[in-house]
């Protein structure tokens, strides 16, 4: 791929080509991706389950995330605490994360622990335990996580309100961690039903990257994971978010040193053809100190302490969120006005060539940075397989970004960054008087 301005090629950066990734689908429907990398004697093994808060219902919100935790609390062969104990004493560690669409288990370990990990993963996918005492204890852990990430975190509180206002019908309305009353009231039956529905091999993609032999990895997957029975997958999410008919606003009044403002626009799902133009748009607006919003809001007007934007991968249409922190003494409305002016301008005039090229260079360099580690690659292979429908699209990112024109960027800016399509959430510091 040519870079018109610099005339140089990014292709040489590719750490690996799709040909390096071997795939197999087990008889029970689990898809396996393996990429060998012998740089360090370690392995990253990721399990992507296609179940998240999107598959929940009022009353059981947060269940997928709770399950993320419960998967470490004991199964048939490896009882309570054993997963972590065994893993750590064999030199490995782990984490897991939940989004609105997926629950992902992330294992990092020395190559010598590969068979143990396959055995332990298959044990918990097949035969998870449901001990009422452990469930109550884990409820406390999850509530503590909520207190930390939401209730006692101003960004967390505002983000939750923003989502709940931007989505009125689709399950993206509720937070991944769940509403407090739901965290307090899940029942054993809720948990068991959710486990059966979500944690089936046919609902999972397994990615292994690192110091392994592909043949041995696939053999172990067949030995340990293939015997796990397939299940009825989660029912399709029927609800489509209706088009927004006008600007929505929500306020949070809370003790704070500084206000926060978030502005969200509905944007399409990851697989949509506007994904790459939206990435370029977002990058031109907020990435780096030469970006439009940094220059205007932080540097020139000095209305904001920081400005950033993000769009999470999503199976259904999601949001492009701008997040800014007004400076002390600056009315959020002034910062907001400047933000809207810049968003309007990018829809009115096409990006100059130099600015388009800059945004593409930044996106490409960051893309390659994310592929530097075995963990980064395992994650991205899974993300592309699940959200984009094919891991090979990871290796087509460069082409997709290069194909974006200034006209594309202008079009998506006009189409999505409209007043009617936006939700504004403002956190206003509460003083003693305003209470």
């Amino acid at each position, binding site marked *: 791929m040519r870079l018109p301005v610099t005339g140089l090629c990014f292709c040489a950066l590719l750490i690996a080509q799709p040909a390096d990734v071997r795939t197999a689908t087990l008889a029970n429907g689990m898809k396996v991706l393996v990429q060998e990398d012998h740089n360090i004697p370690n392995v990253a093994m990721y399990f992507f389950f296609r179940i998240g808060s999107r598959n929940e219902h009022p009353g059981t919100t947060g269940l997928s995330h709770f399950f993320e935790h419960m998967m470490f609390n004991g199964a048939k062969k490896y009882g309570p605490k054993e997963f972590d104990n065994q893993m750590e004493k064999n030199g490995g560690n782990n*984490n897991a994360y939940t989004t609105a669409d997926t629950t992902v288990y992330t294992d990092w370990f020395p190559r010598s*622990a590969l068979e143990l990990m396959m055995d332990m993963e298959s044990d918990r996918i097949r035969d998870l335990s449901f001990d009422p005492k452990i469930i109550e204890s884990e409820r406390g*852990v999850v509530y503590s996580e909520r*207190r930390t990430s939401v209730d006692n975190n101003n960004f967390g509180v505002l983000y939750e309100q923003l989502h709940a206002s931007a989505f009125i019908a689709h399950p993206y309305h509720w937070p991944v961690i769940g509403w407090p009353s739901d965290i307090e009231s899940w029942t054993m039956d809720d948990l068991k039903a959710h486990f059966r529905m979500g944690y089936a091999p046919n609902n999972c993609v397994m990615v292994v990257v690192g110091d392994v032999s592909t043949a041995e990895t696939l053999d172990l997957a067949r030995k340990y994971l293939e015997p796990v029975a397939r299940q009825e997958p989660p029912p399709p999410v029927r609800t489509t978010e209706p088009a927004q008919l006008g600007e929505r606003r929500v306020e949070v009044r809370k003790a704070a040193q500084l206000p926060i403002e978030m502005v969200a626009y509905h944007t399409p799902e990851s697989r949509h053809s506007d994904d790459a133009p939206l990435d370029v748009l977002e990058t031109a607006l907020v990435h780096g100190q030469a970006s439009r919003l940094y220059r205007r809001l932080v540097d020139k007007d000095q209305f904001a302490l920081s400005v950033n934007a993000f769009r999470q991968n999503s199976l259904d249409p999601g949001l492009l969120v701008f997040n800014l922190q007004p400076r002390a003494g600056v009315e959020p409305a002034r910062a907001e006005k400047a933000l809207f002016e810049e968003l309007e301008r990018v829809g009115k005039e096409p990006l100059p060539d130099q600015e388009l090229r800059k945004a593409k*260079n*930044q996106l490409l360099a960051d893309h390659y940075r994310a592929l*530097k580690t075995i963990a980064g690659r395992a994650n991205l292979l899974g993300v592309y397989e699940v959200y984009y429908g094919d891991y090979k699209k990871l290796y087509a990112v460069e082409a997709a970004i290069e194909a974006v024109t200034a006209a594309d960027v202008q079009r998506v800016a006009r189409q999505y960054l409209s007043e009617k399509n936006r939700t504004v959430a403002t956190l206003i510091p509460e003083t003693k008087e305003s209470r």
Partner: protein
Amino acid sequence: MLARYGLGLAVVASASWGQVKLPPYTREVLPNGAVVYLMTRPGVSLVGFRILVRGGQESDPPDRGGLASVTAQLLRKGSSRRTADQFSDELDFLGGTFQTDLGFGPSSATTISGEFLKKDFDRGLDLIADAVLHPAFPDAEVQKLVAQRVDAAKSIKDNPNAAINSYFQSFFFGSWHPYGHPPDEVTLARIKRQDVVDYHQRVYCGRNLVVIASGDFDPSAAEPKIRDAFGAAPAGTAFAWPAQAQLKSGGQLLLVDKPDATQTYFYIGQPGIDRKNPDRVTLQLVNTLFGGRFTSMLNDELRISSGLTYGAGCQLQQPRLPGGIVITTFTKTETTAKAVDMALDVLKRLGEKGISSEQLASAKAYVKGTYPTQRLETSDQLAVVLGELELYGLGKDEVDDLFSRIDAVTLEQANAAARKYYRAENLTFVLLGNASKIREAAARYAPQVREVSINQAGWSAMQN
């Protein structure tokens, strides 16, 4: 996205592993005293530059905490050849990065790092060297940045999980200690252009510079370019390290009142070790078991077995001067005393009962197994390692012999270190939460209690 746990601590592999080694590199001292490291790592077509300027937080004047980091942030805001906008335009156009640290943690160097595509080696080096050695510090930019940092210091208090770290640092070390004055809204507001200019002239000189290039590049072509760029700096005077400072005595508690908090965040600290302490490998193993991994004693007790918190752990700080051994966790307001008591209980039990040979074997495997992905996988991780070796005067055996040193730790040594360093008396506490509900309980933990409001300027120190 919600992660299963948020502890930033971890350390590794099976007994069948061999020793890990640092990849080959070169070290050269330029005539002006600057030390240059080159480590080529072909594979990923990126090149990283990591510049250390000796001093860091230790060079901050106590009444101007944050000066070193403000100076570093201003490097890109105009030079003799570029305006701030020109720098950003060039950097962003290359898809490059330019990062400096914010000066909060106990640090002995300012770090400036940048990463570029392999093809942009020359332009990247030029940008970094121009910023580091020839900044103009336009007054308007100084004023703008200082005002931003003052607001940012205030906004940290909206995130108790981050704020408690600075409260603790200030309270634990004390204002006279080089690590005891993390930047706050008062010390930052005092910083003027002349302070920055003087600081740069005094500290950014050959004798204080360490320049590390790592990644995919041709070392024979790179060496003269780096020598030209950084060898031109005046040799200057080597930074005079502050002498060993006494730590504040323990038995003290700081209560930070945040009336809207529904959770109490707490740190419990005691004196620990410096970066060269001969017990460091042993202590790393002990701390892994006590509070450095998911199944650690603290996390097992406070999270896994009781559900009191999302996470509990223990930091084993190892700065140039002795740092702290610090228990960190949080719990809902109502269970504050229960959680503090439980943490103290776990601490006491470590000293009394020690650890078992099975636990020690597990910690050894864990520290070795996780080491490669944390320290040796990418060229930027390797640059961090090289920088530490130079800054603290450690040899490459720090990495190359690490696994054999881990293997050599005996159960007797581990238990002696646990008894010596993990004491259950004379502790320093910081509790951040709703004081009206936890004040009474807090008073039980230390003979001396000091209370501040989160809305009060600064951290724990009396403002001067």
